[in-house]
């Protein structure tokens, strides 16, 4: 899957770049590893929200990449996507620790969007030592009744 021609309901080309950079900065995972699936999942997450929240998110992504906001908070006229990784983290933390609740709300929203969109993807599970579903593989469930294995294949559940 490539980033080109993704079937998206909400995110536009400019938004994709912002979300990818956000994912990289917040999750510590490079954009290639995040992959197009991350964008598709983020888009599905947003598309599931009510219209007024979609509008808010659209504005938030725009504001986060705004050169004016970067100038006000950092003294630089760079877009977020053009900042160095260190500048991006500093910029994000300016939002987190701002006295203005609106900035903190924005930072929290973007963190939730990224965290949800990546870690609900099956491809993220191996790296975090998550063995996955139990259905059909109940006997491999790591903590089943405190390590005991009362379930055996063929047992009625």
């Amino acid at each position, binding site marked *: 899957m490539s980033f080109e021609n993704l079937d998206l309901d909400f995110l536009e080309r400019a938004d994709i770049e912002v979300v990818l950079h956000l994912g990289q*900065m*917040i*999750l*510590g*995972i490079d954009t290639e590893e995040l992959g197009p699936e991350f964008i598709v*999942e983020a888009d*599905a*997450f947003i598309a*599931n*929200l*009510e219209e*007024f*929240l979609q*509008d808010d998110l659209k*504005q938030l992504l725009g504001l986060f990449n705004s050169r004016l906001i970067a100038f006000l908070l950092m003294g630089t006229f760079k877009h977020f996507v053009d900042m160095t990784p260190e500048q991006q*983290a500093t910029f*994000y*933390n300016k939002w*987190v*620790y701002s006295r203005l*609740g609106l900035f*903190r*709300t924005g*930072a*929290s*929203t973007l*963190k*939730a969007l*990224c*965290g*949800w*969109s*990546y*870690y*609900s*993807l099956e491809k*993220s*599970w191996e*790296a*975090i*030592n*998550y*063995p996955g*579903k*139990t*259905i059909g593989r*109940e006997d491999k*469930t*790591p*903590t*089943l*009744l*405190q*390590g*005991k294995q*009362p*379930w055996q294949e063929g047992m009625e*559940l």
Partner: protein
Amino acid sequence: MIITPDNLPEDHALQADIVIIGTGAGGAMAAARFASQGYKIIMLEEGPYVSKKDFTQEENTLVRKMYRRGGALATDDMSIRILQGKVFGGSTTINWMNSFRTPDDVLEEWSADFGLEEYLPSYMESHYQGIEERMSIHTVPEDQHSPQNLIILEAAEKMGIHGEACRNNSHGCIGCGKCGLGCAYDAKQDMRLTYLKDAQQYDCTIFTSTKATRIDYQDNNNQTIHATPQDGSERHVTITTQRTIVAGGAIMTPLLLQHSGLGTGGIVGKYLHLHPVLGSVGLYDREIYPTYGIPMSAYSHELKDITNGYGVWQEVPDLELFLAGVNMPGIGPRRKELMEQANRMGVILTLTRDGASGKSAGQVRWRRGLNPQNGHFALKKYPSITYRLDPLDKKHALMGLRQAIEMHFSAGATKVLPMHAHGFEITNDKQIDAFFQLPMGPNQLSIFSAHPTGSVRMGKDPKQTAVNECMELHHHPGVYVMDGSTLPTAPGVNPMVSILGAVSRAIELGNIGL
């Protein structure tokens, strides 16, 4: 009978003795009771119909399908994320099974402060017994605690504080740890498998994926309910009824009442309580696997009474990955490194019984705001949830968080990271104090909730409460509210059984007058 938008009958103008809006704990209990008394019941559920085969344990599809706002429900400022079911069976389909009775001191508080002497412990005993029997509620056996729950029990023993097994509503639970995605084994005895099943033995028709949009109130014996199938079609369902029971939960119920002009008295929507939850992550040398095992099988309520019966209690979650992804502290490579140790991670949740100062904690209402659309600004009405953690509740919550950090270390954690935007790592006592020097404002300290209650509270005084002891609106007889929104104060325990018990008692008291 279950009706989905696919098999919606041609005749969309229907009639019932009682319409029940919502299929969660309150709605299901009401349906079972009234259907068995011979009334013709129609239930409306906004969320989809689900059964065991739908519970595939796939987070990204199931959370979007079964949680309100796809799991993204939150206060307006995003400082508290609220997990709430929007599915057949309501939040009982996706909850973590904790099944405690309302504590006696809370019932006594309701009697003293709200005139609800009918809910004193002696009157509630038989209701709780019946609920516990129907839902297979039992104390989790000692040999079934997951490693994550053992953190609570081990720490409690070492610290000399309270710690014991919880009670849950399961039968044959294997501890897959996916309760939040619906039970793929039908072990969780949720509403689908208990009270909704009972109701369907009688004249009870349940419309799923069908949202009640408005209640037209004519008088105490005549109401018309308007509803819309959630399939994108333009279809419309109207039901005329003699009694209406709203059971949409503490967020949706006040919104529907207000939208229908039934929020009179200025009480509906106020006094929202959330049981705000703080989290702390302990990293252990041993494997914990917090995404597996029976969730919340152990708890500690050592700090349950810090101020006049208000305080905190500690439990451990069913740590679905979407929750971990959203709430893990910090950013960047350190966050990635933390997530990579998910199998050695144990999480303690600190739940606060909010409302200690007696003030209004939160509010649910409709707001109007300007939204830009296609280059123009449009005046739009949108649902609003506001909540500010009261200073006394915050003090309790932070005391509880400190205790949770100490519990992690007592149980052998090598490092503890409270769920805070900073990602602060604690490895010794001095760092605990340093952590509490960080800013702890909204969206800095990570907070979530799964227990919204109180927004249509019950009591005798119409100036202070919205419904009477029978859960009937003071100002609109014939319309009842039977869900968590009626609980006069936060119950201080996971609220499912409190809701079921209160509704069961209200029905006994009022018997709906038909």
